[in-house]
């Protein structure tokens, strides 16, 4: 064994290298305050390991980025945990960077002859922030998409070269495939390579000048190995433990719904360590003092100057009070950033609009994962199409926008928001269900605002029939009516009633007979028959998808209200809504959408 190692040492000189690495001289012995550099190196090691494996599963294009991250998060073994470790280590790194910087400043390790090393450190800090920024976009989810757009839009306000810079950064005029390719190349290739090169330089310079030992020495001098190594290792384990706790507590990293350019995202916020910059741009003095230059000054010039002072610190530190200035400056800077961050969080906490946007974002995120995990998987056009074509997601929006000015849905506007005006058309929640039809045929309810109270049909034949004839039904007729309700509701074939309808086939048959023979429905309506004189809506397939789509498209069609239509717009005929939108509305009203939970092992 010894012979082999001797041979290896002769050929490589590894012993000298190991000796130099391990037997660094530490005046005053090992101390906890020296651990930060090692923890950062360790954090970077975690990012390289986890990042390399994430790389094997990630797919940068606007139709596959979210999809591949979804697959990592919800389908691959332990993928949610891997992503979580990568995500939270990135966050911890920001904290460690600040701690490292503070230790260097407090101990005066930035002063001559260590200026260059201090600068490499500052550049490394910027590179790590750039890694965070580029990584935030890669899942191509709503959060990353909108937050990163703000960052690259700021690029465009740089005088003269801004627009060109922005185009280069995002690989075109707008976000797309090349934005992801470029950000991924930066995130997984260029930036890490620069970080490695600079860290090599940083450590070389650190070793060249030696550690800046903190006076007074409390212990005898020692070597890096083993006491300081042990302290560093313990600190690294503490970092790892923090990451693991965060990862397990939050069930891995978040993944919002796929990027949707047509859908403004009110919940867009940068990651917490950029929040202070985000909040800074909201400060009113920028616009008050600098007018339309406010953004340029707030987003580029002021941060640039503040950073410039950091770079100048080795020189400032030469003055008599320079070191104290440097410390005070950094503390004020951090306090300011902390205050702005707190303000940003506090404003969001107290903003109902923001809270609503977050709730909506969470619902969409949950929903798209349900759809993606369904039997159809994700279409080649990307997961964004799943939400675009989902009745449960689009129905409420279409209803609130197009229908809620007359109809209510369970008393609200479809999206859960209260409506000011009383309804002027029936409440459509549960439309065509047994309960809904039974309520409409109830003499006590038919003229309530929930049904026809707000329409001109309040004075119509149906209301008269229900209030005069149905009200006087004897027991036998009432039983026939109950069967008729079941049969009519079965026409809709509502997904929620399918099992019930199948079980009560005999009752359905009786009900159908009641509609055509016993009760006087066919005096005005049609029901699986032709009748040119029919004056009321067709009951064939009442509440089915086709029926509802026809009704929404054109209520003035003779099959529905004809010329007696009361103010209901012809959504399809007038092309106010596309056929796709009408189908989404119809399906949503019918409760016809994919149901299914989030797959197991997803960490959610």
């Amino acid at each position, binding site marked *: 064994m010894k012979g082999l190692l001797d041979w290896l040492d002769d050929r490589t000189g590894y012993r000298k290298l190991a000796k130099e690495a391990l037997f660094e001289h530490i005046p005053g012995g090992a101390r906890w305050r020296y651990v930060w550099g090692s923890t950062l190196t360790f954090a970077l090691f*975690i990012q390289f390991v*986890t990042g390399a*494996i994430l790389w094997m599963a990630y797919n940068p294009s606007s139709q596959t980025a979210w*999809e591949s991250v979804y697959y990592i998060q919800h*389908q691959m073994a332990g993928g949610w945990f891997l992503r979580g470790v990568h995500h939270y280590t990135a966050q911890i790194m920001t904290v460690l960077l600040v701690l490292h910087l503070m230790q260097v400043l407090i101990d005066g390790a930035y002063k001559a002859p260590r200026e260059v090393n201090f600068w490499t450190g500052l550049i490394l800090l910027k590179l790590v922030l750039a890694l965070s920024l580029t990584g935030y976009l890669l899942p191509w989810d709503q959060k990353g998409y909108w937050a990163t757009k703000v960052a690259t839009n700021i690029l465009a306000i740089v005088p003269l070269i801004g627009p060109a810079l922005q185009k280069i950064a995002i690989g075109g005029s707008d976000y797309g495939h090349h934005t992801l390719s470029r950000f991924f190349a930066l995130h997984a290739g260029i930036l890490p390579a620069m970080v490695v090169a600079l860290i090599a330089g940083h450590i070389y310079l650190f070793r060249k000048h030696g550690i800046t030992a903190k006076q007074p020495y409390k212990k005898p001098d020692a070597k890096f*190995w083993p006491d300081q*190594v*042990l302290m560093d290792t313990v600190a690294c384990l503490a970092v*790892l433990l923090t990451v*693991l706790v965060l990862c397990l507590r939050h069930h891995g990293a978040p993944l919002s719904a796929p990027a949707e350019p047509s859908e403004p995202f009110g919940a867009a916020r940068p990651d917490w360590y950029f929040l202070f910059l985000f909040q800074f741009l909201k400060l009113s003095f920028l616009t008050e003092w600098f007018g339309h230059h406010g953004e340029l000054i707030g987003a580029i010039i002021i941060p640039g100057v503040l950073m410039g002072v950091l770079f100048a610190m080795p020189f400032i530190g030469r003055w008599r009070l320079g070191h104290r200035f440097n410390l005070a400056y950094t503390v004020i800077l951090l306090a300011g950033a902390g205050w702005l961050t707190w303000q940003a969080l506090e404003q969001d906490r107290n903003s109902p609009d923001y809270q609503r946007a977050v709730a909506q974002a969470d619902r969409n995120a949950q929903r798209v994962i349900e759809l993606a995990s369904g039997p159809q998987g994700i279409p080649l056009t990307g997961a964004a199409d799943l939400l675009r074509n989902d009745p449960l997601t689009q129905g409420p929006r279409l209803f609130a926008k197009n229908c809620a000015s007359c109809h209510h849905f369970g008393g609200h506007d479809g999206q859960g928001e209260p409506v000011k005006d009383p309804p002027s058309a029936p409440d459509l929640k549960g439309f065509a269900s047994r309960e809904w039809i039974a309520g409409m045929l109830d003499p006590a309810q038919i003229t309530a605002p929930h049904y026809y109270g707000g329409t001109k049909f309040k004075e119509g034949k149906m209301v008269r029939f229900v209030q005069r004839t149905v009200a006087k039904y004897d027991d036998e007729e009432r039983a026939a009516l109950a069967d008729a309700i079941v049969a009519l509701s079965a026409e809709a074939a509502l997904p929620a009633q399918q099992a019930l309808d199948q079980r009560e086939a005999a009752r359905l048959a009786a009900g159908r007979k009641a509609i055509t023979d016993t009760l006087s429905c066919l005096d005005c309506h049609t029901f699986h028959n032709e009748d040119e004189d029919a004056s009321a809506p067709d009951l064939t397939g009442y509440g089915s998808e086709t029926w509802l789509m026809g009704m929404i498209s054109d209520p003035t069609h003779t099959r529905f209200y004809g010329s007696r239509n009361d103010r209901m717009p012809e959504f399809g005929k007038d092309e106010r809504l596309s056929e796709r939108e009408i189908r989404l509305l119809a399906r949503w009203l019918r409760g016809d959408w994919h149901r299914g939970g989030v797959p197991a092992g997803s960490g959610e």
Partner: protein
Amino acid sequence: MSHDPSTPPADPPDGDRRGFLTKALCCGLGGVAAAIPAAAGLGVLLDPLSRKSDASGTLARIATLDSLPIGDKPQLFPVIATRVDAWNRTTAPVGAVYVRRTGEKTLQVFHTTCPHAGCAVEFREEKQGYFCPCHDSTFSLEGRRSEQSPAARDLDELEYEIRENGEIWVRFQNYLTGHKEKVPVA
């Protein structure tokens, strides 16, 4: 190293209990710290092993019997089937087969993949056999490998069924290349 070599600090007391314990702890804890991030990725790294394709193959409609005259040369057909590609489930070409009608109700169906290294074989009419353009394996009309071929086995013959309406359905299945036996790709 930057420190003054004239005043070397005392080497850490090597060999004593505390020094040994410290070093052992360094190695142990350091190993744990390095292993956990690596272990976090192990599941994703090895995830493909837990995903198996259907070893019994996929039934795919290839052609109708009428389109294949008896004794005609082999015809190349794409195999269109449901394909699960990570998060996508699509109907897409998954491979190709050569089909030759040998009788009224009998066919010979070959996978186009050369059993040597997986290139696609071509039917050469003048040679009345199959030829692999990569490493020059040759196979007879019946799929038998020639002696000089680097391929270790004959062309992979696939099962088929002829339905009552005359449709030809092939049970499409990939086999590991390079092996002497037909081993299905799981």
